[in-house]
């Protein structure tokens, strides 16, 4: 019975993650902690390991259809991983409640901007502004990495809207690029958890079995997804994440 629960956890994370170009941690961690009764500290390493598989599985569907920018993948990954290290070190200095509430405000603003589908004021194009394009992208990747490290969340939920709204990438390319990128940062985190013996091997096997199937299906549907459906789903995911991040901090304030 437990195996089925873990399997469905991986499957649902793969489906949503693959569809939206995310890792699926936003599904896995609550699923494992709330439904399966797994401790939070055990759920996070399992989630990080499974995200590596989801990236392998779902990104292939986007790459096959040319919906991922390979140059951006490498460039952004380098700076995102660097930002991630900075963020996780900063989290020891910056008060958690402050960063969570600040990020919540940012998430809510992004969620509404994303839903409206506001066009960027100036679309940066690679051909015309090569240096500027790359500068903007590296800054975005670094900040995304810092935020992800600071709050302990995956980068995908921040990265896709930023690539779409600020860089001006098409929604499918933003999701495909993100799906490939998250594999690298997740691999770094998962390796650290694994070396510290924090990955629960009994849980991780069925979750991986589920996510490898879910990721493929999710990725396949994601490449033909209608932008409105993606935007609405992202809107819900971002508001949900905002709620999860801020609820405890707000409760503490009152």
């Amino acid at each position: 019975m437990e195996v089925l629960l873990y399997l469905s956890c991986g499957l649902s994370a793969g489906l949503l993650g693959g569809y939206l170009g995310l890792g699926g941690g936003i599904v896995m961690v609550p699923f494992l902690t709330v439904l399966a009764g797994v401790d939070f500290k055990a759920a996070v390493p399992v989630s990080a390991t499974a995200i590596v598989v989801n990236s392998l599985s779902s990104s292939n569907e986007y790459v096959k259809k040319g919906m991922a920018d390979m140059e951006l993948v490498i460039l952004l990954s380098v700076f995102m991983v660097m930002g991630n290290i900075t963020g996780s070190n900063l989290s020891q200095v910056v008060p958690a409640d402050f960063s969570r509430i600040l990020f919540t405000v940012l998430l809510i603003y992004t969620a509404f901007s994303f839903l409206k589908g506001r066009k960027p004021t100036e679309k940066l194009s690679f051909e015309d502004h090569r240096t500027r394009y790359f500068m903007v992208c590296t800054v975005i990747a670094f900040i995304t990495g810092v935020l992800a490290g600071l709050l302990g969340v995956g980068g995908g939920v921040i990265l896709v809207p930023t690539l779409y709204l600020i860089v001006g990438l098409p929604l499918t390319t933003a999701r495909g690029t993100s799906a490939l990128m998250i594999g690298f940062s997740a691999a770094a985190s998962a390796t650290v958890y694994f070396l510290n013996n924090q990955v629960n091997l009994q849980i991780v096997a069925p979750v991986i079995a589920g996510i490898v199937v879910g990721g493929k299906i999710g990725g396949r549907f994601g490449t033909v997804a209608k932008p409105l459906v993606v935007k609405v789903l992202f809107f819900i995911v971002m508001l949900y994440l905002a709620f999860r991040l801020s609820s405890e901090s707000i409760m503490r304030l009152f």
Partner: protein
Amino acid sequence: MKEKLFNSNSLIKYQRYSRNLVALYFITLTLLSATSIWVSVEAIYWGVVGLLLIALLRVLVFAHEFRKAGLFRFSLLSYLLGVVILSTVALKYWIL
């Protein structure tokens, strides 16, 4: 568009074979444990080791493809990514 020079066929093949291998391995382990057949923790352990290696080796596929496409800066950047990931692991595991 320069990105068109990047031939993604190797990456697609690499990811497809890795995914199939991971799927076969972990689905078999899950089925065995679901049918109450004893599954060694070591089998899962080495599965995860293999999975992490597959993920890290993907950087080399990128580097190779960029080099073949004549995008040498991006090839170097791919190696740099590998170094950054390994340094992160070393930093978090051994130093912090």
